[in-house]
């Protein structure tokens, strides 16, 4: 599995690292869908081996705890956890 792209309004490069089983990750995807922005996501628990290690390494650069969801906006900033107000503000 690779990164899944979701079409929408271009608000820059928006990357969501998620888990398929995590409810907060699901809420984050729903919020991004609701905001109608274009984004990509990766369900890291569905990755195996080197693909998984590579994804964890990418997340760790933004979020040392490598927790989910981690949202990376334009390779400039990250929002860790489902922080609705912060996400809305960043993508307004």
């Amino acid at each position, binding site marked *: 599995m690779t990164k899944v792209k979701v079409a929408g309004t271009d608000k820059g490069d928006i990357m969501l690292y998620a888990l398929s089983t995590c409810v907060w990750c699901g809420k984050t995807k729903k919020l991004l869908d609701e905001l109608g922005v274009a984004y990509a996501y990766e369900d890291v628990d569905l990755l195996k081996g080197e693909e998984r290690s590579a994804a964890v390494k990418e997340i760790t650069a933004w979020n040392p705890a490598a*927790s989910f969801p981690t949202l990376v906006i334009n390779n400039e900033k990250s929002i860790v956890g489902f922080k609705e107000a912060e996400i809305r503000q960043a993508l307004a």
Partner: protein
Amino acid sequence: MTGGNIDEASVDRLYRQLDADAESGGYHLNPDREFTRSLVEGLLVNIDRYGYQACPCRLASGVKEEDLDIICPCDYRDPDVVEYGACFCGLYVNEAIKKGERQAEAVPERRGREMKEQKEETAGGVTVRLSQPVWRCKVCGYLCARPEAPDICPICKVPRERFERFV
């Protein structure tokens, strides 16, 4: 949410069991039924995937020994509920959230930091000789003095492997 082959009846069964265990042990599940059902579904996915109920909101390694601390209920549940009113997932909540007086919010990851082990040999400068070793449940803090830790924690029901020798 997670799709796959988890059926409704299994979700209901585990939900009822977790709820009964929580209430009998002084804990509460999140009152948001749909939210909690999704988490229970995640637990079932992980049981299916890894063979144990790894936290659905964390990335399990698949190696049980490495994941013991994040098998639900995780080692971080109690301190998170005390500090944030909910565990990392929001599955377990405090009284205020249960009653709807407060909402569960994003809880920062506690794993890998802050969990300082207190390794004092003596208490208050007094050395005590004990007739039995004392075992501590790493999940709920239950202590018991006996030759071996119990098979199942009588308070929070986690298995023996979640105990540590305390004294």
